[in-house]
């Protein structure tokens, strides 16, 4: 029975903040396939293309027939815990600080034995299922959880190390003026975030949702303009040490590519918000978040960007906007590397065209703000890195993975259909 977590006490201002430590992050190249799967919350193992044998640990040649053709496939994660132990001594500082720690051996129905972390509600002899998640080193680890779920399952201390749950944490949503801001605020309130800071640019002009946003429980509206360095630094000075989750929902989108426009002004604005805005926020908030990755129950835990799925493959009707998101995607990879020492997750939520004025003439399916908000919360609760929300985004990434050049051709075909 997992004891539910309670809101943490106020931080003792006289104590040194705990420096983030990490489990071992070394993995062979083959083993990184697990991390790629964990980024999306999938459980996948290598399955020999020639004889079908499932492999574990990840390796370079089939253990039965020596074939080197070992594609990763989604695998049923169920099995039985056949041995368990609670570790009380460790040579690794991260685990030393979190003793005692439960591990076990699960015999999967798929026919391999896996050493795994074990959730507090799972005992040796139980049927359980494995979930594949990223630990504080940013690498994939497997956790055995009750096959049918359990009350307060997410509050198990070992499981919390693998997730970025907003519960009792403080979140900064960068742009209160964005069409998805209200939905995000409501979703974080429902997820029991303790404070929801809303960054408000250009308070000198009104926006319709402000009244509603101010009513959401836990919301505090503070000035923030991601295009203004001084504004970012001022807010960092005020709440940088209290930002546990940062949701960068700032976005500047206009239709148009290259030749259809006659100047670079809109493109500059797109870059200024979508790329440089991310850069400013990261330069401002990154250091504090990275340092607070192990700072108690409401530690800094995640950075969320909401990006267009067309960051992966340019949509020419929104060509300049797509390019700015491609820049942001690349930059977010840099940020992921730079925040990894603190155990802070960088999660990108990729969406197709959204339900708002700048996509108004496009046909459905379009993504509503509520859908984005749901995807952000669900992604944080699973500690994911890559989330694709809506049919267009899911379709796009599947095509990209099957062949980026083919997708590029399909995107060229789409020119003129969205303007």
């Amino acid at each position: 029975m997992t004891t539910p977590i309670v809101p943490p006490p106020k931080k003792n201002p006289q104590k040194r903040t705990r420096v983030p430590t990490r489990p071992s992050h070394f993995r062979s190249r083959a083993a990184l396939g697990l991390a790629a799967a964990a980024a999306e919350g999938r459980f996948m193992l290598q399955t020999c293309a020639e004889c079908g044998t499932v492999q574990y640990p990840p390796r370079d040649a089939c253990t039965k027939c020596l074939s080197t053709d070992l594609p990763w496939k989604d695998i049923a994660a169920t099995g039985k815990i056949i041995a368990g132990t609670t570790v009380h001594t460790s040579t690794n500082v991260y685990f030393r600080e979190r003793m005692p720690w439960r591990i076990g051996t699960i015999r999967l129905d798929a026919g391999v034995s896996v050493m795994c972390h074990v959730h507090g509600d799972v005992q040796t002899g139980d049927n359980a299922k494995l979930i594949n998640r990223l630990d504080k080193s940013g690498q994939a680890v497997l956790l055995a959880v009750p096959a049918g779920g359990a009350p307060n399952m997410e509050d198990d201390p070992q499981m919390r190390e693998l997730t970025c749950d907003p519960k009792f944490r403080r979140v900064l949503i960068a742009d209160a003026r964005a069409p998805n801001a209200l939905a995000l605020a409501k979703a974080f309130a429902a997820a029991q975030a303790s404070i929801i800071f809303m960054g408000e640019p250009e308070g000198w002009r009104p926006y319709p949702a402000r009244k509603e946003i101010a009513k959401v429980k836990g919301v505090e509206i503070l000035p923030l303009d991601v295009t203004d360095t001084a504004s970012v630094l001022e807010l960092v000075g005020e709440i940088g040490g209290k930002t546990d989750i940062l949701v960068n929902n700032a976005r500047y989108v206009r239709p148009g590519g290259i030749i259809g426009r006659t100047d670079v002004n809109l493109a500059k604005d797109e870059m200024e918000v979508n790329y440089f805005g991310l850069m400013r926020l990261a330069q401002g908030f990154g250091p504090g978040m990275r340092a607070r990755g192990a700072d108690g129950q409401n530690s800094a835990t995640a950075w969320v960007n909401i990006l267009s799925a067309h960051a992966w493959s340019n949509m020419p009707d929104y060509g300049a906007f797509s390019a700015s998101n491609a820049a942001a995607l690349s930059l977010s990879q840099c940020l992921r590397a730079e925040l990894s020492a603190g155990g802070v997750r960088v999660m990108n939520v990729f969406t197709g065209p959204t339900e708002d004025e700048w996509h108004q003439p496009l046909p459905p399916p379009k993504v509503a703000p509520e859908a984005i908000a749901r995807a952000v919360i669900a992604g944080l609760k699973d500690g994911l890195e890559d989330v694709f929300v809506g049919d267009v985004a899911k379709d796009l990434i599947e095509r990209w993975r099957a062949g980026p050049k083919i997708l590029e051709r399909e995107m060229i075909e789409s020119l003129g259909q969205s303007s």
Partner: protein
Amino acid sequence: MGYAGVVAVAPASVPYQRFSIETAHWWIARALRETLQRAGLAPGDVDGFSVSSFTLFPDTAVGLTQHLGLTPRWLDHIPMGGASGVAALRRAARAVQCGDANVVACVSGDTNHVDSFRRMLSSFSRFAQDASYPYGSGGPNASFALLTDYYMRAFGATREDFGRICVAQRANALCNPHAVMKSPLTLDQYMNARVISDPIHLFDCVMPVAGAEAFLVMREEDARAAGLKCAKILSTIERHNAFPDDPIQMRGGWEMDLDELYSMAGCTADDIDLLQTYDDYPVIVMMQMEDLGFCKKGEGKEFVRARNLTIGGDFPHNVSGGQLSAGQAGAAGGFIGLVEAIRQVTGDAGPTQVANARQALVSGFGMINYDRGVCTSAAIIAGDGQP
């Protein structure tokens, strides 16, 4: 064919130290010198060299030849951990038998710096790095806790059963002046010791130390001509990655080749005067007792309840204290049992001598590559015993 005409001589042990600022090279040199002195030989007489060590990096046996001034015509580096001793013995024996070398020095040694253990664990093997170290980083203590947990559930063994092994080995160690553990151990103390990774508690674990062990392999006629006491090699076996489809390890490779071990030696388990198992954890000791034919699988607990495992008992086992009480000097843990056994069957063991010991079975096990020990080996050796 057997190993007729080839013997192991000049067993040498360099007293262990908890921590050492010296290198593995230094410890290996000490053991090599000691074994040569005991045989009345000079370094130049060695034309075969076999090395086992975890802390030689970036060197291997190759670097050691130039470091120690050797010019062998047969060279081996054995990375099999606890199975290295028997593996070194059987390779060296074939080399001498076939004329590839005349005198093979088999040496194992490791240093132990303050951070040696942690560094070794974190880079032990690719599978350990990928699939076991990230899970609590409890090292072999945690991995063997899982095996012990499984074994206890499957066969009903209790902690007291394992405690019997540890207590007996400690009693044996008290006769060994070089053992690092110097105080007696009662079953109560064993049971109440602090938990490391349940069900493994403090006295289930070896103490990592710095140390080295060595022996020589040569033709019997040369050994006798030099007046050296000889241990004959009756049989050896070796097996790696046995039973890979077992969900978890509850048996080792010895089971696959047991018949060959005894038939080559022309004896049975009843003819063994003392047993030296690889004792990183008592559960593996129990497994070896089963898999080497001393009792049936799952009946290890009855076996240890019924027998007296001390030097003077009816089933002498790990008579110098084993690693659990004498210390584990890295890869030398794969030699300690064999080197002691050579002393025992040649009547040269001194304070730990088992009366009338002539035939010994030495078992090796090691290399937790992922979730199980991959290497196993065993040898039956015989000597003239005490005069």
